[in-house]
């Protein structure tokens, strides 16, 4: 079948239930700014196809996949889709699964790869990926010397959304590569589903650090987050101490966030923590140590005991709502 002009092949991350991951809207949105989104869904359910169309995919390619085989079935499907669609670019979520697939496709098809883009554009010479480096201290652009770029896109970084489309759905014929895959067991969620916003891409984030002192007391961070309608984050010290799962770690080796509001509670502001949050629009810090480096980048700092201040903030916010 024919494909739209300037096709951008988008690999949709699929959750364990077969639904599309929350990164979908932004990935298709990014693709729509540089061409026509063609989505690939491997191992999705029926709803996944609809969701991709609603997010703006003009064509949806599907393949069955195999949840018990790591990475290889998705790579095989992506390779088949790539050869069939001949896209101008391949966009993939910069997730764990996404990076693995992107790397393998790039090797198989000898393509240039750009990682962790916070945006994509097109100029006369082709497609450019934009990156935020060293905690947002530097901005860089990357592009392939020639050929189609494979680009992984940072989750939560792209604001563009595409209009819903009436997608043509096509089932892909996928030749098996024969590459041996690791056997993968069922995925167990680390946390129960919650109504709180997701950390990546959240417009407000409240993070807690070692200063919270215990897992029980970390509840204060959750209460403040709920009063603000914010997502929850933590420092590596908080994660190492078991106050909060690793998926919430903000920083160099955790998640990078760029919210409208970031509230750091009992966090010293080590350089590796700042690397994940210093591009926030407004930063609020609460720390009993007036010399803590977090105050160097805070728009509003409170020097004080968090156990006294935070309950008062929650109370004031609740009072305001009434």
């Amino acid at each position, binding site marked *: 079948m024919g494909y739209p002009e300037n096709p951008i092949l988008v690999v949709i991350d699929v959750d*364990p239930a077969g639904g599309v*991951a929350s990164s979908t809207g932004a990935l298709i949105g990014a693709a729509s700014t540089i061409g026509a989104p063609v989505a690939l869904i491997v191992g999705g359910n029926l709803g996944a196809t609809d969701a991709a169309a609603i997010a703006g995919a003009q064509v949806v390619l599907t393949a069955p996949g195999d949840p018990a085989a*790591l*990475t290889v079935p998705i790579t095989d499907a992506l390779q088949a889709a790539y050869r069939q669609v001949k896209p101008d670019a391949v966009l993939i979520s910069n997730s*764990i*699964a996404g*990076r*693995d*697939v992107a*790397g*393998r496709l*790039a*090797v198989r098809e*000898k*393509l240039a*790869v750009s*990682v*962790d883009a916070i945006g994509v554009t097109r100029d006369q010479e082709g497609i450019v990926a934009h990156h935020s480096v*060293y905690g947002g*201290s*530097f*901005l*860089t*652009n*990357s*592009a*392939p*010397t*020639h050929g189609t*770029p494979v680009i992984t896109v940072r989750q939560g970084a792209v604001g563009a959304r595409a209009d819903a489309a009436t997608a043509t759905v096509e089932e892909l014929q996928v030749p098996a590569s024969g590459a041996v*895959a*690791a*056997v*993968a*067991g069922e*995925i167990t969620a*680390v946390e129960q589903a919650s109504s709180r916003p997701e950390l990546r891409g959240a417009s407000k984030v409240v993070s807690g650090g070692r200063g919270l002192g215990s897992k029980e007391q970390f509840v204060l961070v959750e209460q403040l987050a709920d009063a*603000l309608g914010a997502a929850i984050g933590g420092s*590596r010290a908080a994660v190492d101490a078991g106050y909060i799962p*690793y998926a919430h770690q903000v920083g*160099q*080796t955790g998640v990078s966030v760029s919210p409208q509001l970031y509230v750091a509670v009992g966090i010293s502001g080590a350089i*590796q923590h700042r*690397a994940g949050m210093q591009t926030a629009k407004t930063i*609020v810090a609460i720390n009993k140590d*007036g010399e803590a480096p977090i105050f*160097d980048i805070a*728009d*509003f*700092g*409170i*020097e*004080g*005991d968090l156990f006294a*201040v935070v309950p*008062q*903030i929650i109370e*004031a*916010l609740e009072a*305001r709502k009434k």
Partner: protein
Amino acid sequence: MKIYVLVKEVPDTYGDRKLDPETGLTDRATGDVVLDEITERALEVALCYADENPDTDVVALSMSPGSATASVRRALAIGAASAVHIVDEDLRGADLGLTAETLAAAIRRGEPDLVIAGNLSTDGSGGMIPAMLAEHLGYVQATALSAVEIGANSVTGTRSADAGTQEVAAPLPAVISITEALPDARFPNLKNTMAAKKKPLEVLSLADLGVSADPAAAPRTILTAVSEKPPRAAGIKITNDGDAAGQLVEFLMQNKLV
């Protein structure tokens, strides 16, 4: 069992990290360089296995500038039995594609049963090399492991996947990457540091490996622009006299954040 551990020298995250405004490459002259913490943890995984299985050969493999010898020696001091250091001027600014091709060529020469890497470096944050190596080598890939069990014929572990955790099992030969949930490396004591000076350290060039960095040979990713953002400035700071909460909520309201 032969285990290759990928170790990388990076700018110290505690220091001031800069990109060269002309090339967009890491400016190695600005701050200190260290072995990336995650690659030390990867080495620790191999060494723990070697502690229990004395016939294990742990080799540290690094692709880095000639100036990185001290970092490679550190891997030997921590406990690797030997090291392979790939040094070539043509690798300056190598993208992920060339890096993976070069590392794969070096691994092919050694034919290890297992390759262990960190999940993400702190400078490039690419997180793609392990999967790319698996594809080049035809090894089985298991990435993002937060627990690892190495067996005679397979490696198993817990994978921190995007939506939760899962158990994975890979027959050898395999490439795995590990997360920072795994322990820090042991500290090299003086004795090991002295002994490291006598351990074999092989230096290889692209020609030795039969790899071409010729830009025409394959598409490469290049940096086309780089700019520095001005650092953030501090704003208001108050000491809590009992009224800080009220002032903060006022500030949030003025800025339309509540």
